[in-house]
């Protein structure tokens, strides 16, 4: 659906393209802020279980760093695979479409 939609929009006047770009930009900002929040929540949940001190100790810090790095690598890999599948669905007809 989005593809046809965006196709249609190519023919729309400049001000609509501008509006569309603003919208996409806004969604991207929101998405990266959400991703940040989710990453913090996940690494905190997995790494922090001791509340006898108010500061992170070395071990907790290491755990959080690794968690965040692993998450970013994971997220990038998923992004690549996801893009391949999206592309496949867009070009091949024998693959059942996702919509």
């Amino acid at each position, binding site marked *: 659906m989005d593809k046809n*939609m965006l196709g249609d929009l190519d023919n729309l006047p400049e001000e609509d393209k501008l509006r569309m770009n603003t919208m996409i930009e806004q969604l991207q900002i929101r998405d990266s802020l959400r991703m940040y929040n*989710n990453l913090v929540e*996940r690494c905190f949940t*997995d790494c922090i279980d001791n509340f006898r001190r108010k500061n992170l100790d070395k071990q907790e810090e290491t755990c959080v760093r*690794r968690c965040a790095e692993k998450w970013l*690598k*994971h997220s990038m890999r*998923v*992004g690549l*695979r996801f893009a391949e599948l999206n592309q496949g669905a867009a070009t091949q007809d024998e693959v059942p479409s996702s919509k």
Partner: protein
Amino acid sequence: MAANRITPQQVNRDQIFGMAEKEMEYRVEMFNKLTQTCFAKCVENRYKESELNMGENSCIDRCVSKYWQVTNLVGQLLGNQGPM
């Protein structure tokens, strides 16, 4: 959010933008759920190192593939009887 006068035409264009927006939100949400689900299924969470090892990497690839297939399968079911 604000407009002095809304014509039917205007609402129509707003609807198109609104639908495009919802569609994109949906794709972002799908990607995020897929990412979180596959992280939980595939990545060792005691974080002994900061690299993904080979087992984790191939698990991730298959997880993405299967998630995609489940999305299509469920989409077909919904198309047949309901809300999508």
